[in-house]
């Protein structure tokens, strides 16, 4: 019994298997076999026109993706790489349509086997509209996302495995795939290794210290303003949020002027009272201190506003219950306030760390990553992303810039991992 069932499972005598097979061989054929001619012809036309219009493009694209061109000056490696990536995307779309065609033929055949009549023309269109509706809604955004976000990222990953530099650039030269050579150089050549280690450690220190400071200050202020004994809450809140409201590039440039050692007000008007002159811009240590202080100034209002919003939603009866039990202020903070705050804001706080990790603006606008440091090709305050910027636009070390970006991407993925775990969204999935 069981064995005969098995053999008939794949038997071509069953309409569902035959329809599937026919659709695999020629898209649309299975639908025609199901006597759904209009849909079959439609799919067939789509499939053939897809092949006819994209064949040459795909052919060159895939060839280019593997070889990156063979004749210097005639073949442009970068254009070939882009065409190759676009070909892969187009091909994926094609495969998606093809798979849909197969699945559709099979499910129609199954419906027929179960004795359901073929839906009429109007009903067929309605079904198509209903099932396809979400895809139509997403399509414009998806196309933009693919070409503006995904394609550049894929292209960047590709570049990291080529030898694309200022001295080896198309159309004069052909690029070639070099495997992991760029990464090996990054960790073995002295100049790259030293720079990478310095920039990397500073990036980590910067991310942790600056972000933690802004969170702690924001939290502290939010708790203080929330105190029952404090008056003028609205005014205080408005003033505390001001640094967030002023465009960051304006405030950073202003701070850069304020910290300027010769004409900046901090040295000239304030520190000179105590006979102090601090080289804020030319000494790496003091430049780092200044940048961290500025970021704290810029970043705490967001955290403050966030916590203030959440604090107002902590139910008052929890505190009353704690009072009855004789809980101290510290205990209330630790067991009621903090869990509440962190539960609601954890994903946003993780985002803060991720943002500072990639906070190009402050590094570049404050001091362009300077001061220069002997024996490395990045400045003293450069973090990874500003170093990548310099490698791209100042020294045209595209391959190295891309390789470092990949390492940054891996780091970001760690943040993303925690983000996924903390985001409640997926726990609530399945409501619809």
């Amino acid at each position, binding site marked *: 019994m069981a064995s005969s069932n098995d053999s008939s499972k794949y038997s071509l005598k069953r309409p569902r298997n035959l329809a599937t097979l026919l659709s695999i061989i020629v898209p649309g054929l299975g639908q025609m076999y199901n006597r759904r001619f209009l849909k079959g012809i439609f799919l067939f036309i789509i499939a053939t026109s897809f092949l006819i219009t994209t064949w040459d493009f795909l052919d060159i694209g895939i060839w280019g993706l593997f070889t990156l061109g063979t004749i210097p000056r005639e073949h442009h490696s970068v254009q070939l790489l882009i065409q190759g990536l676009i070909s892969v995307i187009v091909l994926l779309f094609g495969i998606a349509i093809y798979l849909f065609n197969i699945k559709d033929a099979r499910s129609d055949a199954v419906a027929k086997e179960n004795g359901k009549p073929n839906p009429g023309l109007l009903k067929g269109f309605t079904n198509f509209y209903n*099932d396809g509706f*979400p895809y139509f809604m997403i399509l*414009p*955004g998806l196309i933009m996302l693919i070409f503006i*976000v995904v394609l550049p990222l894929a292209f960047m990953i590709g570049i990291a495995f080529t030898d694309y530099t200022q001295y080896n650039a198309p159309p004069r030269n052909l690029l070639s795939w070099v495997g992991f050579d760029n990464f090996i150089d990054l960790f073995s050549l002295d100049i790259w290794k030293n720079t990478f280690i310095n920039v990397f450690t500073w990036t980590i220190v910067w991310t942790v210290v600056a972000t933690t400071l802004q969170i702690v200050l924001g939290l502290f202020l939010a708790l203080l303003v929330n105190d029952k004994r404090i008056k003028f809450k609205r005014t205080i809140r408005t003033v505390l949020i001001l640094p967030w409201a002023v*465009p960051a*590039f*304006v405030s950073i440039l202003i701070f850069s002027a304020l910290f300027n050692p010769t004409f900046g007000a901090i040295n000239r008007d304030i520190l000179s009272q105590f006979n102090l002159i601090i080289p804020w811009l030319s000494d790496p240590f003091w430049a780092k201190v200044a940048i961290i202080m500025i970021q704290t100034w810029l970043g705490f209002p967001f955290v403050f506003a966030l916590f203030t919003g959440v604090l107002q939603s902590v139910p008052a009866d929890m505190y009353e219950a704690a009072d009855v039990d004789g809980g101290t202020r510290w205990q209330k903070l630790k067991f009621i306030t903090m869990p509440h705050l962190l539960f609601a804001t954890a994903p946003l706080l993780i985002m803060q760390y991720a943002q500072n990790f990639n906070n190009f603006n402050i590094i570049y606008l404050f001091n362009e990553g300077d001061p220069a440091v002997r024996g490395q090709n990045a400045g003293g305050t450069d973090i990874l992303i500003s170093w990548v910027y310099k490698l791209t*636009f100042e020294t045209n070390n595209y391959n190295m810039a891309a390789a470092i970006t990949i390492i940054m991407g891996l780091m970001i993925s760690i943040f*993303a991992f925690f983000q996924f775990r903390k985001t409640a969204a997926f726990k609530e999935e399945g409501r619809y």
Partner: protein
Amino acid sequence: MAMKQKTKSKIEVTFIYLFFLLMFIVIAYPLLWTVMMSINPGSNMLVTQLFPKNPTLEHYKWLFTSPNSDYLTWYKNSLGVAIANSLGSIVLTSLIAYAFSRFKFVGRKYGLYMFLLLQMFPVLMGMVALYILLTTIGLNDSLVGLTLIYLGGQIPFNAWLVKGYLDTIPKELDEAAKIDGAGHLRIFWTIILPLAKPILAVVALFNFMAPFMDFLLPKIVLTSPEKYTLALGLYNFINDQFSTNFTQFAAGSILIAVPIALVFLLLQKYLIGGLTAGATKG
């Protein structure tokens, strides 16, 4: 004992106020300093004073009237990009968010994961590629190219934000409309959109302000001064001869910062609400 408690509390409150005072000074000082710079006569930073003896509005006048100043052109460029960006982003994200919030379809879950992951990767990380891509297809130095990048880059974050908000709109409303014979588009247009106005306003505002505040993308994309946006133009103002143009830079910055700050302070309540709702309720 009670007396002691009261004095202790009073001392505490005094310290809290003192701390606020300190924060006020730290916040206000750079802002006040900028305002004072902008009304200092002359342009040499070495002779500027925190409270100038004879304040002047000459720098504001210079921005708008001097033939050497491109300020109005930059303002126009930024405004154009900002309007296109805020309208385009509403259309794109509301469509996506509606699909993800109300329909079950193949690839939905992976789509959500993709948005969450991509919003961690700023467009900036692809800057090597973007720069080469734009030069290869000839869209560098164009405001259209810049707008397209903004529009594409904002999708993951904002689609997520709006989807989170739409999830809070009861599904019974759509179902009632469906029973009355309304189609998907009609439900979207007459039920979802009006109810989603607050979050869409936030998205529109975000994307309207972004081109005024962003500096790096314009710097990568735009090369000719008549296409600069405000942030890039002002940066180049002081970048060449820092100490000599600073008073004009200060005046130009204040004219951007004041309207943005005002709108921002008025709307920050919605902003926070939207962020926490989007992040936690998802």
